[in-house]
């Protein structure tokens, strides 16, 4: 299995840690050849988009939308300025992969953004990086400087008529700015409040112009797709689930880390790579795609493979690929309360159900943990969550609702015990 690791976004990982992020290192693994080829040959963008479609690359930011298809929505023939925006806001609890792409292999992201820009007709790109990422930001900015100096970014590149300018834009601490339209608002110098869709960004995005937004990992995958072919990428994974993907395995595992492995790898193998459940405990539950997705009981996970479709079948979602492992002996009410507080804190506040409902959920859970729970609270939680999910402008409402409903479904007895006894069934978190 090891030879299947780190073949795309992490393909510089084996190089000297002190220099693996440099232009030179990146070039040594074949970096920028695709971008230079495009600048020389000016291939038909549709041909490139088709390659990405063939690869079955699905958005790595959480929604899993096919990247090639998304690009094909851009009205390329319109004379408007168009933009490519990279979503490096990485704020979904459990997710820490984009940070490492920028720290270890920033040039590949730059090349991916340049290629994406070419495909959709954008001559300007912004990489929206969360403000707390001081080190990755510095790395990325250094790489940008190198790329500009090498004539890979800027105007009339390599003597072609092609322009591509790339800038970083920094967030300042708001999870919601990972939502693509909130991100655009934030880029426009406003608070990050998601926009209602339609219009979709491909029609009216940044500054009202056609815009494509992709996750860091999605974009960083593109140069390799073009180099090795969409078919190759697809074959790394499973049909409709092309390629390898980064999994951030965290929580109760012995060696938490990011693993770039083929989609479709059994969860059991991934758990093993992360050193198994820490402290020799049994596996209780897994949140397989970042904090927003439904929790899956450990035994179900152990028979599930790590790809979009398999995890959907297991009743959850692959999301951003953040695998949060929860060991036996953990109080699930406490875990849920933690998640509920996160969403209450990060709600942008515009939609009534999300603004009012997330805080309500968190307070009810706090009250239960304080031994003041009531029998009707269980139904109340479930019902309030149901009144948030699907009724808000952005998916944060769903993200806040899904954990509640799934925790209640799988671990109802813990909630009941808590209400009945005024103390949790399992004391530890």
């Amino acid at each position, binding site marked *: 299995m090891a030879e299947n690791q780190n073949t795309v976004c992490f393909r510089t990982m084996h190089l000297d840690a002190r220099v693996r992020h440099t232009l030179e290192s990146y070039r040594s693994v074949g970096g920028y050849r695709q971008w230079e080829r495009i600048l020389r040959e000016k291939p038909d963008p549709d041909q490139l988009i088709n390659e990405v479609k063939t690869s079955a690359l699905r958005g790595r930011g959480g929604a899993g939308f096919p990247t090639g298809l998304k690009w094909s929505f851009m009205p390329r023939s319109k004379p408007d*300025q168009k933009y490519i925006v990279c979503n490096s806001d*990485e*704020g*979904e*609890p*459990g*997710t*820490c992969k*984009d*940070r490492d792409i920028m720290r270890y292999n920033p040039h590949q992201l730059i090349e991916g953004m340049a290629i994406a820009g070419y495909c959709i007709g954008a001559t300007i790109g*912004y990489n929206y990086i*969360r*403000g*707390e*990422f*001081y*080190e990755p930001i510095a790395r990325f900015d250094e790489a940008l400087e190198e790329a500009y100096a090498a004539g890979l970014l800027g105007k009339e590149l390599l003597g072609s008529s092609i322009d591509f300018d790339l*800038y970083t*834009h*920094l*967030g*300042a*601490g*708001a*999870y919601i700015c990972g939502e693509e339209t909130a991100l655009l608002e*934030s*880029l*426009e*110098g*406003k*608070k*990050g409040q998601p*926009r*209602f869709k339609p*219009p979709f960004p491909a029609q*009216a995005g940044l*500054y*009202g112009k056609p815009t494509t937004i992709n996750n860091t990992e999605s974009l960083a995958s593109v140069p390799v797709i073009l180099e090795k072919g969409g078919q190759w990428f697809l074959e790394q994974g499973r049909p409709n689930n092309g390629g390898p993907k980064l999994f*951030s*395995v*965290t*929580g*109760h595992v012995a060696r*938490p*880390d*990011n693993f770039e492995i083929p989609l479709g790898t059994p969860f059991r193998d991934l758990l093993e790579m992360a050193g198994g459940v820490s402290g020799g405990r049994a596996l209780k539950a897994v*949140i397989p795609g970042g*904090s927003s997705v439904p929790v899956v009981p450990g035994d179900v996970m152990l028979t599930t493979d790590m790809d979009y479709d398999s995890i959907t079948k297991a009743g959850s979602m692959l999301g951003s690929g*953040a695998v*949060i492992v*929860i060991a036996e002996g953990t109080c699930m009410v406490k*875990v849920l309360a*933690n*998640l509920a*507080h*996160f969403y209450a*804190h*990060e709600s*942008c506040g515009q939609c009534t159900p999300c603004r009012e409902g997330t805080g309500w959920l968190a307070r009810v859970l706090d009250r239960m943990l304080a031994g003041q729970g009531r029998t009707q609270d269980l139904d109340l939680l479930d019902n309030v969550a149901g009144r948030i999910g699907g009724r808000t402008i952005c998916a944060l409402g769903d993200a806040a609702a899904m954990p509640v409903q799934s925790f209640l479904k799988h671990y109802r007895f813990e909630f009941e015990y808590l209400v009945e006894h005024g103390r949790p069934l399992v004391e530890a*978190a």
Partner: protein
Amino acid sequence: MSFRNTPLAVIQDVDKETLLTPELRAEIDKHVAKYPPEWKQSAVMPALTLVQDHNGGWLSRELMDQVAAYLDMPETAVYEVATFYAMYDLEPVGRHKVCVCNSISCMLGGAEELMHHIEKKHNVAPGGTTADGKLTFKEFECLGACRHAPVVMVDKAYHECVTPDAIDKIIDDLD
């Protein structure tokens, strides 16, 4: 009427040369250059960040107003931004900010214990500043470095897999 997305630009009737400092203006201008000319306001977040760093880690109303004037924005729009994002502080802060991640992976990794430790040892509640003005202690939502739980951001540096002992040492080493 339908959706609107036009810049909020207002004419701020001040001499820009009197605002902030020449160095800050130069830094802000670098950001302004990244965006279309009519969208100067896109630079409001980097501008606030720069100004906050320059002002010992927090933003006063006067400074926010100056940023508004410099970017031709309505002041209210700047307040909206400054109050929305967690990295801006609108009250004076300690010399250092110690931000402990409290989200799920870090919680599973022991963040709670770490926070109690800081609270007790330095007699400061989350959001507060120690009596000696050395540090402001903040809870932060997921810092995006979950594989190193628990994570603590001290000023501009991440510290990974932080134990109570480790945080003592980190804080001791701060001036």
